């Protein structure tokens, strides 16, 4: 016999998994769970509510992500899902999971350095090339193809690459 509590936690797990499967439209190897954007899934009355936290203030992917979450939940059988944006505490790249960092590297993007303190923002940056692993790299442009990335180049293998900036 399944208790009400078990059924609720099972429902919540299903809703969480559905929301967690949504990927960042600009970096499709990362799910919102990898990014640390997915914060909470709760049931409010007859509908499910998902809390997410925005990444960069102006990230245009956030609207898309909200929409994708609603679609994913509806596909999983949840009716009238809602997405709520939570500002506090503010997201930082430290919330990205280790798995997410590895996926980024495999995709050819150097993951953000851990501990995004101001020292990491402005201190000596040793960004390893995601292709060959060399730390003999240089910054080409502080602002890259999306607001979360900078453009770097490896001086060992000569490949240019994206670096996911600390935030």
């Amino acid at each position, binding site marked *: 016999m399944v208790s009400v509590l078990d059924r609720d936690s099972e429902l919540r797990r299903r809703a969480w998994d559905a929301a967690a499967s949504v990927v960042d439209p600009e970096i499709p190897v990362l799910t919102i769970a990898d990014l640390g954007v997915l914060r909470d899934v709760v049931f409010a009355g007859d509908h499910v509510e998902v809390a997410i936290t925005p990444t960069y203030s102006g990230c245009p992917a956030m609207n898309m992500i909200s929409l994708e979450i609603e679609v994913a939940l509806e596909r999983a059988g949840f009716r009238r899902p809602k997405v709520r944006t939570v*500002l506090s505490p503010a997201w930082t790249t430290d919330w990205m999971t280790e798995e997410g960092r590895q996926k980024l590297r495999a995709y050819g993007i150097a993951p953000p350095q851990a501990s995004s303190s101001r020292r990491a923002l402005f201190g000596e940056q040793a960004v390893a090339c995601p292709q060959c692993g060399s730390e003999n790299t240089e910054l080409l442009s502080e*602002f890259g193809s999306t*607001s979360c990335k900078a453009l770097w180049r490896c001086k060992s293998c000569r490949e240019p690459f994206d670096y996911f900036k600390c935030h």
Partner: protein
Amino acid sequence: MATANIQVSETPLVLYALRRADDALILGHRLSEWCGHAPMLEEDMALSNIALDLIGQARELYTYASKVEGKDNDEDKLAYLRDIRQYRNLLLVEQPNGDFAQTLVRQFFYSAFADLYWRAMMNSRDTTLAAIAAKSEKESAYHLRHASEWLIRLGDGTDESHARAQAAIDHLWAFTGEMFAVDDGERALIHAGIAIDPGTLRGRWLQTLSNVASEATLVLPENDWMQQGGRTGRHSEHLGHLLSELQSMQRTFPGLTW
């Protein structure tokens, strides 16, 4: 062109959020005017990215102002349905892009302030403003670094780039005083721990400026006469032209959506 302006109940906290939102929106819009016109591709992307950060900050601040006001004035209405006299941004941010030096100096003056301001605001007792500050301070730090590096390159570059950078500093200087001004409503928020006193940031702001200026072989003006008015809706003519472009779609087709 018959859409009515909204009326906003400007309680001190609504007005406080609105002023910062307007700064970010107007400066973001100015930078977006460079999109497709910057001197090189990397710079085109940089200015557009900074614009995006600022417009993102504006959206969060407008949404918060709207929530505090508790009426129907959402972020879009606040941006699109207020006229020039209802805008509360600094005169500095509405100044035209001019040449590249003028854009960079405007950005440098603002970012050097925003960097300090948002870092201090992370300690606000208002949790929403503190959360917005936590994001904005990192973004502002990147913006400041970008503008500083350019200013050094321009100031310490050719005779032409040096002259243009110095002219931009001399021209925009009188618009910087407004960043440090407070009125009675803001003073009450400062006492309540919601806002910070910008006057306390001026020393460090000047220090940042003089460090960069000396490396750039540029000179900061000694003139301390400052132009004010933006915070109370008395703007230069430039803002009207900017708004007519920013708002034209919503004014022409009220309620238009994508």
